[in-house]
């Protein structure tokens, strides 16, 4: 279990070019497995093009109170990249006129950005249909200043989406750190107490399941059934939907795959599970990802690989949806993670 980010440890995988090199070499260069480009070309889906921008996903910083072993952001307490109020203002200017119906704040732990509450207050005035905050749950319990977050979320009708890798303590803590399971349970109870996740409640509370190891998620609906049963019976916890997300082979998860000698088998599993139907709805076709410093990306994963959008518009200050939608999406072998099985996105399966 890491206690520092790859960046802090000066691990070679902190270098995004090194990651892209690994993803393009080995089994993908000797013809053992087809590249993602070759694979989608088989079904006439290359180049991958956006449909319409529906989701604006803003990463407000890489700082986090946790150091999860699978984190694709390489987030942690030692990361200092934080979105400034000036960049937030540029985002607000875009939110005013974008056709996107969903605003999705992520991190790190977005709540650790000192301007987080100001940003939420300002953005919620602009009438976004679905305003998501990806909260890691433990942040609510981490410090007194965060204890009132459930009430704050409720006030602004935030849709809370939180990670919960398993309903057992052992699996959760191995992926996310000691004590994370118990703190997450306490935080979920606090959210339930103000109405989040309760049956028929408008205060949406969804959970994210991602596998704690070198395997893929299976049927989202049956996982949801299992999670609901155990969380209710054992802890009296309610939530709305479970989104199953595949771990993409980048950053700390890539580091784990290589160190545990699971990389090749994992890539085989992803390629074998390739589903052409998932390609049509993959999230880069309806999402724009904004980094802490305002750069634009096809998705949060491309952001972490340093692959800025292939468009004349590359920064939030120059945002123009028509120009942005006329671009080819940048791909590499990590994209197999979003097209395996029922597909995977920040909103769960895509088929």
């Amino acid at each position, binding site marked *: 279990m890491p206690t520092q980010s790859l960046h802090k440890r000066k691990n070679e995988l902190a270098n995004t070019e090194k990651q892209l090199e690994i993803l393009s070499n080995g089994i993908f260069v000797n013809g053992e497995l087809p590249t993602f480009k070759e694979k989608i070309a088989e079904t006439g889906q290359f180049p991958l093009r956006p449909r319409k921008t529906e989701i604006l996903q803003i990463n407000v910083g890489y700082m986090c109170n946790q150091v999860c072993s699978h984190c694709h952001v390489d987030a942690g307490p030692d990361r200092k990249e934080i979105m400034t109020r000036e960049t937030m203002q540029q985002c607000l200017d875009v939110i005013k006129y974008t056709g996107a119906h969903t605003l999705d704040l992520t991190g790190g732990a977005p709540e650790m950005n000192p301007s987080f509450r100001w940003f939420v207050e300002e953005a919620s005035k602009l009438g976004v249909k679905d305003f998501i905050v990806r909260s890691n749950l433990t942040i609510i319990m981490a410090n007194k200043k965060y204890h009132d977050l459930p009430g704050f979320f409720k006030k602004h009708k935030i849709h809370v989406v939180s990670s919960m890798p398993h309903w057992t303590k052992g699996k959760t803590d191995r992926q996310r750190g000691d004590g994370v399971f118990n703190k997450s349970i306490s935080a979920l109870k606090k959210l339930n107490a103000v109405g989040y996740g309760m049956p028929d409640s408008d205060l949406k509370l969804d959970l994210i399941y991602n*596998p704690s*190891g070198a*395997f*893929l*998620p*299976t*049927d989202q609906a*049956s*996982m949801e059934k299992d999670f609901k049963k155990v969380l209710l019976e054992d802890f009296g916890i309610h939530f709305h939907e479970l989104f199953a997300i595949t771990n993409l082979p980048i950053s700390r998860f890539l580091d784990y795959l290589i160190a545990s000698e699971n990389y090749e088998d994992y890539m085989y599993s992803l390629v074998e599970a390739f589903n052409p139907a998932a390609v049509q709805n993959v999230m880069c076709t309806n999402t724009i990802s904004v980094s802490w410093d305002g750069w634009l990306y096809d998705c949060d994963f491309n952001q972490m690989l340093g692959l800025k959008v292939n468009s004349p518009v590359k920064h939030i200050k120059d945002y123009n949806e028509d120009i942005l939608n006329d671009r080819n999406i940048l791909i590499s072998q990590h994209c197999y993670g979003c097209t395996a099985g029922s597909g995977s996105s920040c909103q769960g399966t895509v088929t």
Partner: protein
Amino acid sequence: MKKTYYDPADLKKFSSITEWSKELGDKFFEYYGKVFEEGALSAREKSLIALAVSHVVKCPYCIDAYTKDGLQRGITKEEMMEAVHAGAAIESGATLVHGVQMMNKYEKLSM
């Protein structure tokens, strides 16, 4: 000459058995896929049965495949180990129940 009979990489090549007998291979994989679909038993229950049988028939490929399948389905290690014990209990029971045959024969031959 390989030093072992089993190579983990062979599991990935399982589908190649159709190359030497297409009709039978295709029929087998179609049947196999159908068996593990959701039915009167859930796919989850079938996965645990498959894991138990994998141990009883001592198939290393199957053990790898159904341990991974179980993880993917969120099956816990406690559930997996109980399934293995269920298989092991039947297997040892199958040995021990022959003890009755031994006892019968012993009694028959003894004065």
